[in-house]
């Protein structure tokens, strides 16, 4: 491991912990106003949607709604699995399998 790599890892670790720990530690003595508490419950679905939808609709960076977008097709298939089974592990495994089958059949 080179000195540059050590500096990179230490620097990355420092900024990463800075996004995780201080809010937990500093705001524990602050009573959150009701409006903020009401807002917090929307953070999980909002962040998930902001990760998932571009990842499926625009996997290469540009919006692609065609049948050539295998991530979108397999994602829709996985969505059906998620809806019908409500089983996360099954959704992931069948979703991955769906991607490979679609590529093998179509692409």
């Amino acid at each position, binding site marked *: 491991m080179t000195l540059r790599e050590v500096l990179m890892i230490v*620097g990355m670790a420092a900024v990463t912990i800075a996004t995780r720990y201080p809010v937990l530690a500093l705001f524990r003595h602050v009573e959150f106003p009701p409006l903020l508490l009401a*807002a917090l419950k929307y953070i999980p679905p909002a962040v998930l949607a902001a990760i998932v939808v571009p990842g*499926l609709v625009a996997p290469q960076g540009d919006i692609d709604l065609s049948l050539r977008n295998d991530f979108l097709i397999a994602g829709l298939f996985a969505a059906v699995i998620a809806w019908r089974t409500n089983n996360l592990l099954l959704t992931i495994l069948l979703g991955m399998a769906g991607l490979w089958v679609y590529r093998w059949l179509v692409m």
Partner: protein
Amino acid sequence: MPTRRGEFLAGMREIVPLIVGAIPFAIIYGAVAVTGGMSPVAAAAMSAIVFAGSAQFVAAGLVAAGVGLGVIIFTTLIVNLRHILYAATLVPYVRHLGQRWLVPLGFTLTDEGFFTTIRRYQAPDNSPYKHWFFAGTAAAMYVNWQIWTWIGIWAGQSIPNPRSWGLDFAFPVTFLGMLLPQVHSVPVAACVVAAAGTALLLQSLPHQLGLVAAALAGVSTGMVVERFAPAKSTAVKETIHHDPA
């Protein structure tokens, strides 16, 4: 009766599907890192010390592109900004814990751990040991991430192009599976649509800055819709417990 041990094991069990989704990601990270010019020791050390999948992924790409240290560290900060949202969401539930808990929980906070843990905290039961559940998710996620990083590092020297296998699909499909069951009311649906639309519009912004903006757009839309179309009684009621330490 909930016990510490029971909660810890439940946390490890509940995060298993998300761990399965993270495995391909860890493999690709390890492979891309060493094929891009990082030493195997550095690639493994980054997983152990930084422990932030998306940021590690981006950093491996930047190392391969020959980008300077300052840019890599700054990019890491931006990519990890969403952790602030996670931490803020958790504060009401963990504020009774001491530093002995907050430091390790903060260090190991991940997307997967957060989404699993927040569901446990939002469950209506009164278990005083939900932070043990949090710790269980974190421990399982951490150990798994190390092991599959090593395998990826090893595979990086033998698999020519790991991305062509479609393994990077595991990330969006995992979070898709997490998202859909949460869409149980009109305000949440509006929040999801607004966040998704904003994320697509702002995609050209570098390094997931669009993600944070999209999250804020989703949250505010959900709040506004909630005000005008109050959630039906079918919506999940939230209870926040302030357990004494």
